[in-house]
Structures are given as structure tokens and as C-alpha cells.
């Protein structure tokens, strides 16, 4: 076992007892410990929601921003300093609802960020409204007749947008989830890890029992995760069996490698050259 205690902090945790987020928090710590990334070398960026509070509950640098907007903040930080290791944590409402346009853009940019979506299929912070991933018919106080819309399939969406790394984890399988997170961090482009997270307070359908009965780990010996069509088929599995693991991974380069001004190093590290600026302005 790697030692995760160095990531502990003294700030009081504010999640409900039994929340699926605890498993995700432990998996994040384990992955960081396994990868030997010191607390001061990690930047966590998050939006708003119960999931987005995660950076407060471990030792790290963090930017806990606005609802839906974690990806632009993280993108800006990565463009400023491509040497940063950035983990983005968002919930399903945060990422697939409020921040949907930013997810599409992040997928197309393929910028080297690791996005963990704590997908509990309900709005927790605002006490139980249907989320973009709630099933059709999901009953809440705001949708008393049941949600009339279709649940979104974020993994299929990501694949259709050219995503290079798409995975699904389960909050109770911490060891497996931590390996997925490590694979995402090691991936040179944008990685999306959708995490089946149980909400013990507001979602009484997608419970630990619901997932324990259905979740299986993809057999990495039999499934190579390099075929887009097979991957799309896997993202359609849900009712009886729910696959977890790396669903799709393709070879890719880093977005930051394509940008001319970043070729001499990160924007942050390059030096200010007044003489060159003077010449450039006068020649323009």
C-alpha cells in the first residue's frame, strides 16, 4: 500500500456519511501517491457542487471556481504553464449541464487535463433535482411526474467528438478507479473519467446495490480499447451490465505542442524581452 497520509488535511469534510465521493477522494489520493506526485505539485480545479468541494478535503493547490466553468479555468492554467499536472473534478450537473459547451470544447482541444466527473445522476447540492444523466422518468420534487427528458450518454458523446481517452470508474472500486486516474494523468491529451457515484441522500435508484449488481470490470486481456466502434458499443451497455475501465484510448499528441508561442517553453517561464517587443511594435 502506498502512503496516502501526506494528502490528508485538517479541513472538516462536508459530505454526507456514506457519500460516494469518499471513495473517489480515496482513489485520487491513492493515484497521486502511486504516481509520487507531491501535494504541492498537484493542481486541482473544480466547479460547484458536492463533487467540486473535493479539493478542500485533501492537501493540494486548488482553484474551486464557478458552476460549470472548471474546464476553462483549468485550460487557462495549462496554457499558462504546460508543466502543471491538473486534475479537474466536476459533478454531472456541473460538467454535462451547466458546463456542457466547455466539455465539447475541451474534447476538441484535447488539452492535457484529467477530468473526473462524479456522476451521481442527481443534483446533490441543491437537494435532489434531476440531472442530465438522470434516467427518463426519474421522480424528484422538481419533476414530480418524472423527468421527461432522455438521459445523456456522456461517454458516447465524448467518443463522437474525437475524445482520445474515455473511461468509467465506480466509486466503490477504489483500487481500480485509482488506476484509471493514474492512466488519465499519464495520458498526453484530454482524459475523461466518468465515475459512477452513489448519492445516499437524493438518489434512491442508483444505489450501491444497483451498481454492485451490474458493474463489471472490462477484461483488459480480451479488450484492447483501441477500436472506436467497439468502444461506442460498450458505452451503450447499461440496463443489466455496466462496464467499467478504459473504454477507449488512442495515440495522441498534446494540444500545447501545437501552439507556436509554447514551443520555447511554457508562457510562464519565457522571459520578458523589452527590446524585442519594442522592435516588434515598431515593425508592425
Amino acid at each position, binding site marked *: 500500500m502506498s502512503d496516502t497520509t501526506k494528502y490528508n488535511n485538517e*479541513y472538516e469534510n462536508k459530505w454526507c456519511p456514506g457519500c460516494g465521493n469518499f471513495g473517489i477522494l480515496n482513489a485520487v489520493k491513492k493515484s497521486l501517491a502511486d504516481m509520487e506526485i507531491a501535494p504541492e505539485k498537484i493542481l486541482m480545479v473544480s466547479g460547484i457542487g458536492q463533487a467540486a468541494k473535493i479539493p478542500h478535503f485533501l492537501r493540494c*493547490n486548488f482553484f474551486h*471556481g464557478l458552476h460549470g466553468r472548471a474546464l476553462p*479555468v483549468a485550460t*487557462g492554467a495549462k496554457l499558462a*504553464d504546460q508543466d502543471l499536472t491538473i486534475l479537474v473534478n466536476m459533478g454531472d450537473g456541473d460538467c454535462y449541464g451547466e458546463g456542457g459547451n466547455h466539455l465539447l470544447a475541451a474534447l476538441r482541444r484535447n488539452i492535457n487535463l484529467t477530468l473526473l466527473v462524479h456522476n451521481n445522476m442527481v443534483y446533490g447540492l441543491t437537494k435532489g433535482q434531476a440531472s442530465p444523466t438522470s434516467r427518463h422518468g426519474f421522480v424528484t420534487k422538481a419533476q414530480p411526474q418524472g423527468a421527461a427528458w432522455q438521459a445523456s450518454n456522456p461517454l458516447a458523446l465524448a467518443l463522437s467528438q474525437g475524445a482520445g481517452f474515455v473511461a468509467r470508474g465506480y466509486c466503490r472500486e477504489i483500487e481500480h478507479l485509482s488506476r484509471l486516474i493514474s492512466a488519465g494523468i499519464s495520458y498526453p491529451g484530454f482524459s475523461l473519467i466518468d465515475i459512477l457515484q452513489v448519492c445516499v441522500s437524493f438518489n434512491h435508484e442508483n444505489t450501491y446495490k444497483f451498481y454492485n449488481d451490474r458493474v463489471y470490470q472490462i477484461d483488459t486481456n480480451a479488450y484492447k480499447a483501441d477500436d472506436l466502434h467497439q468502444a461506442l458499443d460498450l458505452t451503450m451497455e447499461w440496463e443489466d451490465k455496466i462496464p467499467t475501465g478504459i473504454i477507449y484510448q488512442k495515440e495522441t499528441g498534446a494540444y500545447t505542442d501545437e501552439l507556436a508561442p*509554447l514551443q520555447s517553453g511554457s508562457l510562464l517561464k519565457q522571459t520578458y524581452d523589452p527590446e524585442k517587443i519594442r522592435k516588434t*511594435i515598431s515593425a*508592425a
Partner: protein
Amino acid sequence: MSIDVTVTIGGEAGQGIQTVGDIIARVCHKAGLYLLAINDFESRIRGGHSFMQIRISDQPVLAPDHKIDLLIALNSDTCDLHKNEMTETGLVLLDVENDAEKDDSKENLPEAAREKNVLPIAFSQMAKDAGGKIMTNTVAAGACLALLGAPFSALEQILKTRFAEKEKILRNNITAARSGFDAVKHTDFDKAFDWPSGGSAKGRLLSGSQALAFGALAADCRLAAFYPMSPATGIMIQLAEFMDELPVLVEQTEDEISAVNMIIGASYAGVRALTATSGGGFSLMTEGLGLAGITETPVVIINSQRPGPATGLPTRTGQGDLLFVIHASQDEFPRFVFAPGSPEQAYDTMIRAFHLSEKYQVPAIILTDQYFNDSLWMTTREMAVPEEIERFVTIDEEMTSPPEYKRFAVTASGISPRALPCKGRALVCVTANEHDEAGHMSETISDRNTMVEKRQAKTKGMIREMKGPEAYHGKSASILVGWGSSNGAIREAVDLLRSENIDVGALVFSDIWPFPAKKTEEALSSCKRFITVEQNASSQLGLLIRQQTGLSFHTSLLQYDGRPFTPDWIAQHTKSVLEERP
């Protein structure tokens, strides 16, 4: 001024109005004349009516004139649309198709060409003869410059620069220019003047957008994120030209919300970052503005105004966002708001805005407008680049105990030492929630009060950084008060009024917020009355002055038609006001 000529080139969008204007402007500039060129266009790529108006003088020009001396009409509509703006001896050059089948009498010409001051010239035909209709613009420029009395060699020289390395195109253009030039050489034009022989350029020509982009470079801006929106896009296009040479990245985002959050992320990570938009985009950025406020992240946001609300007049100018940007985003937090009134001020303001934004860890907003951004200005001042950039960032070595670092440590000035993430052992923790000194969420009464007071405490230092309004004949009985890009028109209006012995001066604000109340009170202390001059419908600066100083404006001269002020409009209205309500 012994020379003061206004030339307008009008036609449909896509006819090359810019090209004619650009050639004329460059010839005049090279000869040592001063000029200001404004661009007036509709929100369409082809058709409609657009024009470029160039005011040429032997003295610095600060604003467009209300009258046209020479109109180059690339279509008949242009004649009709500008008829009422022509001076009495003004001349119109109208492009007419020269139909060889018909005799050349005026009856065969369009109605517009039969007016006495209209000179029909077959620009397009001459261009075709010289090698292609595309050179219609060159023919028109040739005719215009001939009427102004320019030597042909001056035009030839500019064409050589423009078409360097394209020998055939250059030859054809010189032929085209020559035929336009010769077509009017026997026409008298009373605004023709003696061209300075062997004159040299008095300064450099640049658009307002360029001045802002250059200022950003000199301020060491590293990331510029934006979503395209007129009239701000030009700033980013200009910056993008430098991506090959300098460490500046221009990133187009999926929307304005992303743009503002992206620069906040970049700034948090340690680089200076900018976004530019117009009112609609700024509206989308308001929550992000608050994020910069509560996380105390320095960012610079340019809002290039156009008339609203909503889409409003997308390609036109206005000053309707002053009170909006001062108050934008919920609750309260300190911010800077600047409104530069000239290209020099815009350049300097960019450098100052980045500096002050980092010094106080607050967002800085720069208000410009379509008139300022899209006009071609002349600046005679060298654009100085700072030797060093002070970053106001702390590192582990400067801390007693890096693991104890608190991003929002309470200080007397309200400014906490700012470390960068992942650069040492100090953890940089930041949240959009109200927080404690360490940057963790907190809802305690004491943390809330402490943080509100800490943020507000910065205002004291910030106010000291603010300049009072710039005075022009500031001790006069009546004072015109304006802000931002109206600067030039207001000053010229003062000159016009004073030439008629009317005791009028001006105060023009470039630093808006935090409001320099004391300096304003002093500046207004000796006048009998002040009159606000603004491009909005409620005199937003006037309201702000009243709120902040208790001083009330006598009356306001307000224009909100989306067109720039002219000195004449301001002067005439000032006179009526002083006559009606002395």
C-alpha cells in the same frame, strides 16, 4: 489650420472602400500631414452602404468633421446619402459606367450625376482598361489625390510599397492611378493645397485596436482569450500576428464565459492575461468578473462598447456601458475601470491596467468603443516599452514558513502576498465561495466580515492611483465634461467656441473607477456650470459625478445614434444651451 479637408469614400460593403481610403491616408501621412480616418459600416459583408471618412490637416486632428469637401462615390446611392453633408464648394466624384454606345451627354448619366457639383468619372472602365476592375479603387485614389494637389510621385511611392515584389500588379496599378489622376487634372477644386515638398511622416498611423494590442504586448500580456465580437475582435487579430515572435498566445474560446474563466485560470497560474469583448460578451462575463473579484485574481478585460441593449447596433459606437461595468456582477468588490481617450492613452492605459490589476489583485476593465477601435489615428509619440515588469508575486524563500502560507492573509492594505501554484511548498488554495485566510470555504460571521473588509480595504490605495479628469482651459466659466473617446471632439469643440469668444473649457475623464472624487471636486470648483457630453441617453458620467461628489450638471448633451461626435455638433449644442439657460 491652413489645411483642413475631409474626404469621404462611400459605396457598398465589398467595393474596396478601405483600399481607397488606405491609399489616400498613407500618401497624406507620408507627405507629413496629419489625419484621422473613421470607418462607418453596416453589419453585413456585401452590399448596403459603408464609408470611410478621412480628415486631413497640417495640424493634429482629434475628431471627424461634420462636412465633406470631397466625396468619392463608388455608387449613386452614396451621392444621395451624403448630399446634405457636402460643403458649398464640395465636389463629388461619381463612378459611372462609360457606355460607348451612347453619347457622352449628361442625359445618359444617373440622376445623381446631373447635380452641378458632381463629376462623373468612369473609374471602373479606366480600371478595366488598365488591367482589371479590381483596380477601381486605385483609379479613385488617383483622382482624389490629383484634386487635392498631390504630386503623382507621392502616390506612386505608396503603390510601390503596397505592391512590392508583385511587378505586374504594380505596373497595372500605376497605370490605373495615372488614368484617375489625369482624368481630373483640369478640374479646379478650391480645397486643393500646396503639398509640403520633401515632407516626412509626422508620426505613425495606427488603429485604436492596434494601440490596445501594442499596449498589451508592452505590458507583457501572455494569454489573450476571446470569443469574436465586433468591435473588439480587431484587438485580438492584431495580437495574433505576434504569436510567431513573442510569448503571447491568442486563444479563441467557445464563448465569452470560457474566455473570462480561461484568463482567470492563466493568471492564477502566473501569467498576465487579457480578454476583449463588447457589451453582450461582457454581460456573459459578469459572473467570471465576480470570480476574479472574490479569488483576488488579476485580469484585464476590454469592453469595446457598441450601442445596445442586446445586439443593438453591432457595428456602431456608443458609451452606454459606464455604469454597467462599474456595477457588473453580484455584491461588491473593488475593480478598476479606465476609459482612454486617444491612442497614446490607450497604449499607456493597457500597461497601467495590467500593473495595477496585479498590484491590487483586482480585475481591471478598459472601456473603449467602435469609433476608437476602428478609426485610423495618428500618433506622434514614441511607444515606450517598460524595461522591467513588476509582478507582485511571492515565493517560498520570502516566507517564514511556506507550509503555513495563506493566500488570503489579512493585511492593512487588503493585499495578501500572492504565491503561484506548484512553484514551491506553499499551497495556493482559492475558492469562489467565501473563505478563510487559507482559502478554504467558510461561512462563519467573522470570516465573512474579515474578507469583505479586506477586499474593500484595497479601495483606499486604489483611489490614490486614479488620475483626475484632464483639463483643457479648465478655469473657464462653462465646462464640458466627458470621458473616453469623446476626448478629441470635446477639445475641438472648445476651440471652436473659444474662437467665438465663448468662455468654455473641458474636463475629460480617463480614470473612472474607483472614482477620483476629490480630484473631480477640485477640477469643478471654479466653474459656474458644467455640461456633460456623452454618448448615452441618461448622462451616466453625470449621474456618477453627482453620486460621488454631490455636484450636479447644468445639463447634458447626449447623442446615442451610434455615430461618433463631431466638434461642430458639440459646439452648436453648447451654444444653444448657454443661450437658453445661461
